[in-house]
């Protein structure tokens, strides 16, 4: 069975962040990540002008 790219991503990012993700946790982490990415895509698809400022604007 081919390895899903999202599983590879979970392995790589957990290593990069030094986060322990045990095998038994992976299905739930993956399910949560799928939901989060799906919702993030909904935001990503919304066209904003280059000048759009984030809600959190730093004030010196």
């Amino acid at each position, binding site marked *: 069975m081919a390895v899903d790219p999202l599983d590879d991503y979970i392995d790589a990012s957990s290593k990069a962040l030094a986060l322990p993700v045990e095998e038994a946790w992976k299905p739930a982490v993956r399910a949560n990540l799928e*939901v989060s990415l799906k919702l993030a895509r909904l*935001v990503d698809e919304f066209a904003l002008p280059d000048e759009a400022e984030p809600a959190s604007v730093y004030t010196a």
Partner: protein
Amino acid sequence: MTTNSATPSASGIANAVATRKLSAQDAIDAALARIKRHDQVLNCFTDVTADRARAKARAIDAAIAAGNGAGPLAGVPFAVKNLFDVRGLATRAGSKINRDLMPAKRDAALIERMEAAGAVLVGALNMGEYAYDFTGENVHDGASRNPHDPTRMTGGSSGGSGGAVGGGLVPIALGSDTNGSIRVPSSFCGIFGLKPTYGRLSRARSFPFVFSLDHLGPFARSAGDLALAYDAMQGSDSDDAACTARPIEPVTPSLSQDIGNLRIAIAGGYFQKNVFPEAVEAVARVAKALGAARIVEIPEAARARAAAYVITTTEGASLHLDRLRKRPNDFDPAVRDRLLAGAMIPAPLVDRAQKFRRWYRAQVLELFRTVDVIIAPATPCVAPKLGQVNFVLDGVEMPVRANIGIHTQPISFIGLPVVAVPVPLEPMPIGVQIIAAPWREDIALRVAHALERSGVVAAPQPRGL
């Protein structure tokens, strides 16, 4: 279920204590007795601070006997979600891990302000782990249970706050709301809850969840009690970077003002989808009582909910990153797995969510040029059964946890003030959101008060308590 509440109100206790018809000590002893009697079932309290409460009550009685003025909340018992610092307790925030923290040396700012007004802290309340929850269930402390049906959820994450006020154990509780955690338990437990404007009330010395979305606020059994508590807690605080420097704007004096001049509309589109008949009925009753027929579309509400979700999961992951590394097995596994996934969301997607947030805020503020109040469901359904995983809506099976907060998230995302009002449907109550423009808590509370006087909304007294 009856709406003829047998639970003493905060204003009633304060008046009786101030006029020496009731001692603060008797008021507190009565509250402690209610907690002892009912909390074995409701499981709302994780700590009861009886000694401290009795000492404070004695001091109040002595001050009144000496002719010193009583505060507006004299002798009123209240309790706080256990993410508020309580002097002498470790601030557990619903977790196992935080129990290892040193006991807090100082109370949270809002506890200090409530007690300065004469209120008396009687304990700390159960909550979903680290506030990442809409159910009120907790793997470490057990679920808080709904006072109207203990087999059902209180809602979360301020589950103990909802259950304690809904069950009449205390007239006022404090909680937090990041995505709906005051409004959801208010809805499920049949009480009033105020999520103020973002930045209005100090969060100093409370355990955070999502800095850019966290709010603190009160629960009560009437709009008047909600206003009393809110007024006692207002004021700037340099210990919370987001806390406003605006002057205090008391709402109690204007609570009974006529609302006939207000432009009130019903949220359409997104807010009329994915709702059970009870939520439709509750909004219809409130709209009819207010004479509201206009429907307004809050633009891009689904995307706003999505952006709130992304910011929540990533900021939450950032907060807990080190605990995820060092003590992953001490988390509730469901919370841990959500946070681990949140840590893996690429940064540009979070940045885009924050940019969208500013755009969305501008659109909604524009809408408030033509309307003063928007009403919307607080939850899509009445309280689900404890442990319930899915519900079926229009023939489609949907996960409970992910959908409880769909109507609250797009509102708190831009920090609008909301009063959740209880519609006493049978057999279970359900809430409606009364949403106002930023800093107009006064308007939302006036509308809640008017609805209460009309009899359409009320905090029902649970059967059997």
